[in-house]
């Protein structure tokens, strides 16, 4: 009887330890990005200086007030800067640009992005003709997509935390990686029913212009 009590106590202790370890492990994993990146004005975000210089140029071409440009779905802290930039013109139309620490695209009308598919993935890469050193991308989805999953070159899979753009049907996220196994490889979009609605591959071939 006493032996049984000791065994039960050990079993309970082991179970508790296992649950605790699982909980702590999960907590540690989430500490890198506990929630989606904020949707915030670029002027109050730690954006690269080169990007700040370029914003007035690309914003004015799209009819957007440079001071009203927002940053959405910035890459995780500790990784190279990459984000989507969102602005609204005087007609209320939503525009988006794709920015990194080294470059930015011009603004495109968000509504024009989804003529062919519900998810847009635009990648950026750095390196030498023989070796990739950095791979990143930004993804923008429309309302038909509720979850985006990333598979890395190393084979791990995780869901991206999408930043919703207030008062619009769009959301975005960005990823940057400098180690080979973390390079993004495949991006999958799922609808609310869990059905796969789009798949896009990230090109991991070094460029030889």
């Amino acid at each position: 009887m006493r032996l049984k009590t000791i065994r039960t106590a050990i079993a309970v202790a082991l179970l508790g330890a296992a649950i605790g370890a699982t909980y702590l492990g999960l907590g540690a994993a989430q500490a890198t990005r506990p929630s989606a990146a904020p949707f915030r004005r670029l002027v109050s975000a730690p954006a690269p200086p080169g990007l700040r210089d370029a914003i007035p140029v690309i914003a004015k071409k799209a009819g957007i007030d440079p001071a009203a440009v927002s940053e959405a779905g910035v890459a995780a802290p500790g990784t190279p800067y990459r984000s989507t930039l969102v602005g609204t013109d005087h007609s209320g139309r939503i525009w988006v640009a794709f920015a990194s620490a080294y470059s930015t695209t011009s603004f495109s009308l968000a509504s024009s992005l989804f003529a062919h598919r519900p998810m847009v993935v635009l990648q950026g890469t750095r390196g030498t003709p023989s070796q990739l050193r950095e791979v990143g991308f930004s993804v923008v989805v429309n309302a038909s997509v509720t979850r985006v999953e990333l598979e890395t070159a190393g084979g791990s899979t995780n869901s991206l935390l999408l930043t919703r753009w207030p008062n619009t049907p769009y959301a975005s996220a960005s990823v940057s990686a400098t180690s080979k196994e973390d390079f993004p490889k495949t991006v999958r979009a799922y609808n609310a029913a869990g059905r796969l609605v789009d798949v896009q591959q990230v090109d991991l071939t070094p460029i030889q212009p």
Partner: protein
Amino acid sequence: MRRGFVIVRRTSAAQLAALAIACTAVAALATARPAYACGAYWTVGCQYYGFHEGHSVTNQNGNSHEDVYTTFSPSNVSITGVHTTAGGSWVDSQAMLYGDTVIFFGEAATDKNGCFNPNSQTVFVNCRAADAV
């Protein structure tokens, strides 16, 4: 009876051939690439780019911010704007949608910019590189 059957088969084959030619012609017209106005504006070039083919020109005026503007066909793909060293080695790239401009920051005076076709098909590309800021 047999002869008649042969005649019918020959006629069908001819009709099928004519139909195939007609369908090909219609498909070619439907997918015809739009006319492109090539000229000095396209400082990098205005030409077909094969798979993994790129072209670039040297930084304009040595500015640190350079932009690349491109239009291309088919337009439902993306083209990559590239920043390279003076020797032509790739440094940085950013995928671009049709009609986009990409601005590269922090360039050396001798660096180059241009366009690159990452698609597995040949794409007609108009590409312009110029001072951005």
